């Protein structure tokens, strides 16, 4: 572990920005929330901060673009293609534990297994992630209910913890180690007490998270109760206020569903991949109008079961890191934690 002061940290970012596009969290004046913004020029934007908690935006859009062209056809090369050497690297600063963990989960779907999405993999490999500790938490944050911590332990290139007038910094990948070794003059050994003060700050955030979530059940143990509640009428109640906007899935760092559609471009055709949401009625509707989830309650329910029952079976882990964005984004006020509490009280009966 090393220490880097704020001035040198900015120098480091400036240097890294020569290798790609640099994104940092910037505080929005009116709301105090952090948004990911691209750095156009130095000095770093006023309001840049790696304190507080997760940004409004997730990381998934860096690797799985909101909308992207995945094929142009017909082509003489058929399905052979050269990776675009000019694919920009993204240097993303201030990613939180919930988000780096979410990217590792999405990787399991898009890269691992029999098929890989080459476009996702290329963008993912070009991401350089500088993760950061949460120094606070939001009302909707619940990573601790998933047995997770508000600081990153893996899945990053570098990780920083705010202390004094700078950061404790450590590498989590070979690329991160290389950056530290190549810029040795920017770092010094941590002073006595800095690690202790980082640990104290972390403990404070954990205490606040635990206090905020004390009335909600342990989310790591929801799979079985959900299975028992599969046919329960509670889903009609829980979904009654949903307006089917799809905000919960779009803002979710682990939701990866997409749709392919084709367009005409003069003499050629283009195949486009776009984010999609299981909450909208057309998502699974087939030709001939057959739909395995015709009712809104089926779709609302599906989000919970996909993340907490199906994906643990198919991909080995709950696909929720407790970031709580779906709670913030829901105009109907659906709170996953409260739904779990209602499931528990139904199942207990």
């Amino acid at each position, binding site marked *: 572990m090393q220490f880097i002061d704020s001035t040198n940290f900015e120098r480091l970012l400036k240097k890294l920005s020569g290798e790609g596009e640099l994104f940092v969290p910037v505080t929005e004046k009116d709301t105090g929330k952090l948004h990911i913004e691209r750095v156009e020029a130095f000095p770093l934007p006023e309001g840049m901060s790696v304190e507080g908690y997760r940004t409004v935006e997730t990381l998934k859009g860096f690797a799985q673009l909101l909308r992207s062209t995945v094929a142009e*056809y*017909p082509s003489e090369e*058929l*399905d052979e*293609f050269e990776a675009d050497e000019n694919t920009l690297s993204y240097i993303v600063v201030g990613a939180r534990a919930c988000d780096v963990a979410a990217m590792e989960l999405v990787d399991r779907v898009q890269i691992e297994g029999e098929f890989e999405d080459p476009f996702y993999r290329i963008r993912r490999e070009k991401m350089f992630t500088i993760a950061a500790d949460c120094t606070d938490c939001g009302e909707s944050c619940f990573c601790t209910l998933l047995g997770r911590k508000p600081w990153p332990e893996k899945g990053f290139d570098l990780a920083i913890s705010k202390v004094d007038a700078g950061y404790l910094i450590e590498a989590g990948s070979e690329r991160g180690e290389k950056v530290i070794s190549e810029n040795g003059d920017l770092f010094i050994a941590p002073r006595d007490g800095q690690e202790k003060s980082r640990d104290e700050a972390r403990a404070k955030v954990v205490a606040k998270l635990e206090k905020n979530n004390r009335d909600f059940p342990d989310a790591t143990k929801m799979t079985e109760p959900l299975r028992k509640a599969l046919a329960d009428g509670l889903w009609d109640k829980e979904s009654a206020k949903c307006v089917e906007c799809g905000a919960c899935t779009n803002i979710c760092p682990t939701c*990866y569903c997409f749709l392919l559609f084709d*367009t005409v471009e003069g003499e050629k055709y283009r*195949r486009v991949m776009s984010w999609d949401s299981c909450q909208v009625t057309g*998502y699974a509707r087939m030709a001939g109008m057959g739909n395995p989830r015709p009712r809104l309650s089926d779709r609302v329910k599906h989000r919970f079961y*996909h993340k907490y029952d199906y994906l643990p079976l198919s991909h080995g882990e709950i696909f929720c890191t407790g970031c709580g964005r779906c709670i913030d984004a829901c105009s109907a006020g659906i709170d996953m934690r409260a739904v779990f509490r209602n499931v528990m009280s139904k199942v207990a009966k």
Partner: protein
Amino acid sequence: MKNPYYPIDTVVEDIITETPTIKTFVLKPVRPVKFRAGQFMQLTVPGLGEAPFTPSSDPNITERMEISILKTGKVTNALHELGPGAKVGLRGPFGKGYPLEKLVGKDVLVVGGGVGLAPMRALLYALFDDPSKYRKIVIRFGAREPAELSFRRQYDEWRALAGNISLKTTIDVPHPDWSGHVGLVTTLLEPDKLEGIDIVDSYALSCGPEIMLKFVTLKLLEIGYKPPQIYLSMNRKMSCGMGKCGRCNVGHYYLCVDGPDMCYDKIKHVPNVFG
């Protein structure tokens, strides 16, 4: 690098009208496509999009592929408008295909309805490679009316292939041109109509509309089949074919990688499994 989203350039060589609503498209992809019976392809109508279909042709033939398609939605309506020489695209094959290795030495019951006969024909071609590998091959096909029985020009030829093959057909309601059995395909699944099949040592495979799959399953259970002996070709909307886009799930299975033919034992607990 390979782009798994690129539709391989393919020409429609011929179109065979099977029924008033089903056409078989004879496709020649620019390079051969090797598939196992029951695996499916994503067929592209350029500029319009893709839809998933299981080929109805002999899996041993890789230069050409036949796909039999019911006119039922955006992509299939456009396909039915195409003529010979039209350019389309193919991705795949995707999915597992039928569990052929499990069928060796067993009595095999094949139940198809409507356009569900299409994937079943690829299965039959695979079984007919060497019918003696199976004890009995009992085929039961149903359609609403006589004109809707796909591939009927081939039925007699199939019956004559080997002594252990039985093929019976039925239509849902009486029709002036029909002197055969009348009733839903489930009425051909009464134990006395199954050529003395040894249910305990048999597998049943079925493809057809969801409502048919449901009643076929109930009938099979009633006559003594156990859920692990029943394979159903399930229907869900599909896009990527590779277990990534999310929409074709039945419980925790993605039909595009785990199916589309699913062992009923694996999915019987899923609510509304038949839609």
